[in-house]
């Protein structure tokens, strides 16, 4: 129900952002994330940025897993 991918805002003009997905880019509305600015990573669904992403390194989930495993 929720195909959405992360992309980086490269420019914003009147509520429409140019978003770079790593090689391909497309416009998306940033009306739903009014505090987003150029340089932010956002999650985009159906032409709308729906959330600003917190940066996390690639192995954060593995580290989280190890913490949980150790605690059980």
């Amino acid at each position, binding site marked *: *129900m*929720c*195909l*959405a991918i992360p992309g980086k805002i490269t420019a914003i003009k009147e509520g429409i952002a140019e978003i770079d997905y790593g090689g391909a880019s497309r416009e*998306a*509305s940033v*009306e*739903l*994330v*009014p505090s987003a600015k150029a340089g932010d990573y956002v*999650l985009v*669904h*159906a*032409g*709308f940025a*729906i*959330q600003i*992403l*917190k*940066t*996390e*390194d*690639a*192995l*954060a*989930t*593995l580290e*989280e*897993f190890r913490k*949980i*495993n150790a*605690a*059980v």
Partner: protein
Amino acid sequence: MPQFDKAAALEMADGIKKLVPPAGLSLMEVCGTHTFAIAKSGLRQLLAPHIRFLSGPGCPVCVTAQEDIDRALLLAREQDVIITTFGDMVRVPGRTGSLESLRREGADVRVVYSPLDAVTLAAHTPAKKVIFIGVGFETTAPAVAVAVMHAARRNLKNFFVFNLLKTVPAALRQLLDAQGLKVDGFILPGHVCAVIGTKPFNFLAEKYNIPCAVSGFEPQDILLAVTMIAAMKKSGRAQVQNAYTRVVAEEGNAKACEMVERVFLPCRAKWRALGEMDATGLALRKEFSRFDAAVNFSLPAVLSCEPSACRCGEVLLGKINPAQCGLFGKQCTPSAPVGPCMVSSEGACAAAYHYGG
């Protein structure tokens, strides 16, 4: 740059298998995108037989009532209409064909990526009536809401939404109360939660004592969510935990929720196989009724029955897996689907057909 790789996946899978009781765990995911991701990445095979994934009613195409599909087809046959739709709906079979087959017969049916594209099309083709088929859950509702607001701002007289939007939490409540669903845990839809936050799902842990984890869609996200549920199960805790913190905040996206509130209100909706359920749909508010296709086009009460041998309903409830339906892979295949679970690439049956498991 460190990547999540096979070794990491194996470490997590092994860890999960050790956490899980001898009988294993049945976990329901309620998002078609999860069904797809689990099948495609091979997670189903990696975690079997310790973890059994049940696909819940999370594919918006799969839960669209047959009669709503038939109404969409009626709209496609209207004069001077352009149907705009997400690709997901194009091949869904109704009683009289599909949007795709109607296009072959001359209907103007166009796939769009965003509801905003439908609004732009309406602005550019004033002689035509542009109807957007609005399927989706809470992830998509804000986009449709903003599109309607744009149409209002631009004073468009030829833009309409055939609104089939649905909401998840109340549907899960219904599954547990009335339909006898039994699961060990829920993998909650990460992008729905990105919009509405995690609180609307707290009742699953508080009232039903079922551990839940909000999950993203990369394999590592799903593995973390499964780990969290397994750990909660082991220690006898039931909570809604968040395995997708880079995207999901407990309070969700307030602005997005505000947009939805402004344009829609909760309503009773008819779901395929689950029947009518209170507070599981979104209806356009009266002030936006000029954009409501159901109000502006005369759609008769269409009585459709779902094909009798079709067991999509039981698949949607996680009661059977696709292979247990007698039509699976025989009369019902992706190129000739009988029910919606086979049409959508993330319907449980399509996923099982293409990716096995």
